[in-house]
């Protein structure tokens, strides 16, 4: 009986490089995003190492929909909504587990195979001649595919192949995996979760924004410098350096590249100063050379990209082996979940650095993240009033440096990544 939303026209929301603030505040628009964006795009779900053996499962989300990913007996990963086909109870109450015999509903005990096939109906006799099990299988997520061990799902039967969706961004995943001396990466069993009262797009529009750190994170920059002053710059720990990094001069970020790719994806390229200094004696580097050969190895170690966005579901940081899943809950509520990966065969130190990075860059208690969360919530409030409805996305409009079919290169200070996101948004929402 819900009243129908009026017909949709992207031009209502995107016009002349401006976005209407309703994009962040309208619940009905959010509902459409769930069907048209999260119902069409490839959504990052999990990594192979999270469900190593048949029967292992994890519960993840595609938009507002919980899905169960289960490793089946053939070793394939199956995805189904976490919803019983009988009366609709969720099947799994734990976020992960082992269900070798399938998923049994807690209500009446119906059992479903990894792929949603209805395997058991309690007191089956009651259904003789009136219910065919095959009519009550749980519908599978239309497509599940993985790239180098990273599993994505897509609800749209007509979806393009995953690699096509990834396009140039496959290099984001390569960047992470190639850093493993064994070619193997392993996901930590512990995740770091935070949430904020704001729209999911705020995160995507913030993560590659290199102008905000100097202002939004000024507090932690100053505090970090204060510490450096106290203990001596040569004695500061990595966490403090990470905070200070946000204080780099704008000229630094202006030189730096931003790469945007079709589908709303992007990353900050180039020289964040986090590349490895070539060191032939270093065991880790030796291992990479052994695996890749010297040329590719130094390319991998030299690669120094900042947060890579796989719109609309995840952000990737290969250098520190951290992925964040952005999970929309309501138009004004979003959860962000951080995952760290072990480079199997790399020294423990690499792992410890990844943990430190994830903790510092993804905890609700991180002085940096808490700044961002505050900003998201302040934008939600500010976008609730005032006469000005249109938000400019004009920064760096005329500064693109290179354009290919695969990607466009701009200064990292540009809002091009936001324009790029809304181009994808408008296309999917139409």
């Amino acid at each position: 009986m819900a009243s129908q939303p009026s017909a949709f026209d992207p031009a209502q929301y995107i016009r002349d490089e401006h976005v209407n603030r309703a994009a962040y505040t309208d619940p009905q628009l959010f509902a459409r995003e769930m069907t048209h964006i999260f119902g069409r795009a490839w959504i990052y779900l999990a990594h192979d190492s999270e469900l190593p053996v048949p029967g292992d499962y994890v519960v993840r989300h595609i938009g507002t929909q919980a899905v169960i990913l289960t490793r089946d007996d053939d070793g394939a990963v199956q995805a189904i909504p976490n919803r019983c086909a009988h009366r609709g109870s969720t099947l799994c109450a734990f976020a992960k587990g082992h269900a070798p015999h399938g998923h049994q509903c807690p209500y009446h005990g119906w059992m479903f195979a990894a792929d949603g096939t209805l395997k058991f109906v309690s007191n089956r006799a009651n259904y003789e001649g009136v219910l065919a099990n095959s009519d009550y299988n749980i519908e599978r997520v239309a497509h599940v595919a993985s790239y180098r061990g990273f599993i994505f799902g897509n609800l749209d039967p007509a979806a393009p192949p995953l690699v096509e969706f990834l396009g140039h961004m496959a290099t984001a995943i390569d960047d992470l995996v190639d850093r493993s001396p064994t070619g193997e990466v392993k996901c930590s069993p512990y995740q770091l979760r935070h949430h904020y009262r704001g729209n999911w797009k705020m995160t995507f529009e913030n993560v590659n924004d290199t102008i905000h750190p100097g202002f939004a994170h000024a507090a932690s920059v100053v505090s970090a410098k204060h510490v450096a002053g106290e203990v001596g710059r040569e004695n500061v720990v990595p966490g403090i350096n990470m905070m200070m990094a946000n204080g780099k001069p704008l000229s630094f970020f202006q030189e730096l590249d931003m790469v945007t790719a079709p589908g709303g994806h992007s990353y900050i390229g180039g020289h964040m100063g986090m590349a490895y200094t070539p060191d032939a004696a270093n065991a880790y580097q030796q291992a990479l050379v052994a695996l890749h050969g010297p040329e590719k190895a130094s390319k991998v170690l030299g690669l120094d990209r900042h947060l890579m966005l796989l719109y609309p579901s995840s952000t990737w940081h290969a250098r520190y082996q951290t992925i964040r899943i952005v999970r929309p809950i309501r138009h004004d509520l979003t959860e962000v979940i951080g995952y760290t990966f072990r480079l199997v065969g790399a020294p423990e130190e690499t792992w410890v650095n990844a943990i430190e990075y994830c903790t510092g860059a993804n905890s609700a208690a991180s002085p940096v993240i808490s700044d961002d969360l505050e900003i998201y919530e302040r934008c939600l409030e500010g976008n609730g009033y005032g006469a000005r409805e249109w938000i400019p996305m004009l920064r760096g409009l005329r500064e693109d440096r290179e354009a290919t079919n695969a990607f466009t290169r701009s200064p990292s200070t540009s809002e091009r990544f936001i324009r790029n996101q809304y181009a994808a948004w408008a296309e999917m929402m139409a």
Partner: protein
Amino acid sequence: MIAPALVAEVATFVADEARLLDDRDYTAWLALYAEDARYWVPVSTEQRTTTEGPMHFHDNKQLMMARTHRLMTPRAFGAEPSPRTCHVVSGTRIDALADDGEITASSSQIMLEWRARGHFEEDVRVFGGRVTHRLRRAATGGLIIAEKRIDLVNAEGSFNAMLAPL
């Protein structure tokens, strides 16, 4: 059998530390921590060490300094007012007494937090859980904190910004 006087001393020490946080007297609070101290809040009660995965907090003294310095000057950066807290502590006990005199003590703590964001009841949050201290004797004879671990009841949960140390 542990000397009642020591139990009392530790209980007072733990309560006093919590009080310093409520007072936002961060300078005095930091002074309670050893130079090599660790302050951490795991994301799971199953995390035994700080190298098993990310954590809510994982601070050494420098990070504690930065964190608290920032809380002392929010207005300077257009950031929201620092939260105000109230801790209540209960059932402090000594779990272990090492030969080198290191004391492992634990307590139950509930902390009320208020953030001035104009959202009325929603601005109040309640945190709570088991707090574990590793304590040493300082040269001065007093106690200092080598490690503080806070196992929140909702460690595995999802949090909005946590500005104030717990």
